[in-house]
């Protein structure tokens, strides 16, 4: 038995998933994790090889939400003012005066494509926006409209001419979502869809989630009851990353614990449950911890990656 609100939320997500499915083939986990990031009003970093529909997934999702969407393409010559906005000289009746011209960051959903191609200076311009939900230009601080989330993408290959995200910034992303190659059958579907039908027309998508609905859902996530044991389990997992020095050089911060519990709650909501289970935490632990831990030389020497180490922690 579930409350009406939970049932409605579940129905809405089922609808979103099916609508995205009209455009994006497969990538169910990626879609689910992006929705969870939206429900927890957090930022997500999508990492995957080129051509895996990262940008398409985010842009399709934004179309299903009645929110202001903007896209920034990360390039080495992208300046912070290109992101945050700048003062421009404007002619008025009283004469010339500087007027603030908001940048693309002033939106509800910001897609920062290939974030690691932007310079650290530009990347750090995003920091304040991502954490404080505000932008400071000159002496003025501008509040960003809520809900606000940054969905960034990055490419794990072609490292030349890229600037890896600083730890402080990657910690501000709740998830690092890994997009993988589609299965054989999915790829056949993709080929069929994009070679036999008119790509430009595409299916018509109706925006379903309005701003108010998203706020309510975000509140609902926070209200999901959770047992003390689950909270302890989540914190224990994060704490382990700081204690297992034989594999991990630097562990995750308490921000990871907060994110883990919140994400587990959202996962339960998507599943139509009004309580959280250990499984919710276990499912969310990979995207939440993989960019927050730095594995040591010994682990690297044994060909372990972050996911292997997290799997080891879960045992």
């Amino acid at each position, binding site marked *: 038995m579930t409350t009406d*609100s939970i049932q409605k939320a579940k129905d809405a997500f089922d609808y979103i998933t099916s609508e995205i499915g009209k455009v994006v083939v497969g990538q169910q986990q990626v879609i689910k994790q992006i929705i969870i990031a939206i429900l927890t009003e957090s930022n997500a970093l999508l990492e995957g090889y080129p051509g895996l529909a990262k940008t398409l997934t985010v842009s399709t999702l934004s179309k299903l939400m009645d929110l202001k969407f903007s896209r920034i393409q990360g390039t080495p010559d992208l300046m912070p003012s290109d992101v945050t906005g700048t003062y421009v000289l404007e002619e008025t009746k009283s004469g010339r005066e500087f007027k603030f011209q908001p940048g693309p960051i002033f939106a509800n959903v910001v897609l920062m494509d290939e974030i690691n191609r932007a310079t650290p200076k530009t990347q750090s311009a995003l920091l304040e926006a991502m954490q404080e939900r505000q932008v400071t230009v000159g002496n003025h601080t501008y509040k960003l409209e809520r809900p606000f989330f940054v969905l960034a993408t990055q490419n794990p290959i072609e490292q030349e001419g890229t600037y890896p995200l600083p730890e402080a910034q990657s910690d501000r992303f709740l998830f690092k979502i890994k997009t993988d190659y589609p299965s054989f059958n999915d790829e056949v579907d993709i080929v069929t869809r994009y070679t036999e039908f008119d790509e430009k027309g595409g299916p018509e998508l109706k925006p379903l989630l309005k701003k108010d609905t998203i706020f309510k859902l975000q509140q609902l996530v926070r209200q999901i*009851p959770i*047992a003390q044991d689950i909270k302890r389990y989540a914190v224990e997992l994060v704490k382990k990353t700081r204690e297992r020095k034989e594999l991990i050089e630097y562990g995750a911060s308490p921000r990871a614990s907060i994110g883990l519990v919140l994400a587990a709650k959202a996962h339960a909501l998507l599943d139509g449950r009004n309580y959280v289970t250990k499984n919710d935490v276990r499912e969310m632990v990979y995207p939440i911890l993989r960019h927050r831990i730095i594995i040591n030389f010994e682990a690297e020497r044994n060909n372990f990656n972050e996911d292997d180490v997290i799997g080891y922690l879960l045992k």
Partner: protein
Amino acid sequence: MEILKQALKQVKQILFFVSFFTSLINSLIVFLLFALLFFFFHVAWIYALIPFFVFLGHTTLRSMRRIGYYDVEKKIPDLEWRLRTSADNADRKDELAMDLHHDVLQRLHQVSAARIMNKKQTISKIATILGLCFLLVFFSLNSVHFDDFIPAIQQGMSPITGFFVKESNLTDVSFFGDEDGANIYTEEDQINYGNKEEVVELNQMLGLVDINKYNRDGEGKTFKDTAIGSGNREALGSENSKEKIGDEDKQIVNNYFRSINQP
């Protein structure tokens, strides 16, 4: 939510009962084991109550500390995570929490001591208790005590060393020679000689034979063949001895040499 709190209290009471019952059964087994042991050694059975109460107190305290809703959830999967979550959020009155509380309340009727208890384990423990009771009654009716086993134990014990040894080993003349492969070290008859000498020595140790007497009397004995490892050896002491030996002693010496000449 008062109803939920009361229901959770009842669940706790059931858990306490189950935990105490399990401890009691375990303690009863301990009691019967000690009672049986004490009965064997003529100690009053009432002293078995000491380990019983110590064990009962210890296990009850330990299990009470470990008690949790997890035990209920393990037996009733419908309540898995729900019960714990509801109990931890019993004071919350928002829509989601209330819904969870109602859900849990509906499922709580499934909770009973019989469902939580580990039936297989309990049955096997009760069977153990019955078995121990039977043994206790049987031994008390037949007055079986540890003392009854003392003569039997002593019989198998060497009076000198106190070790349990086979009686036949002490008197059996060929206790080494008969074994397969005993001649891997040297020739078989040499081993036999050695064995026989050893038996004589053992008999002397046990006070069965005073060999010193016969060593003196047997001086000057010669053997037909002294070459090591060639032919059978035969002691001729009884024939060649020039000593004067009494008839009775002579008979013993003859018997001794006859026995050591046996193949």
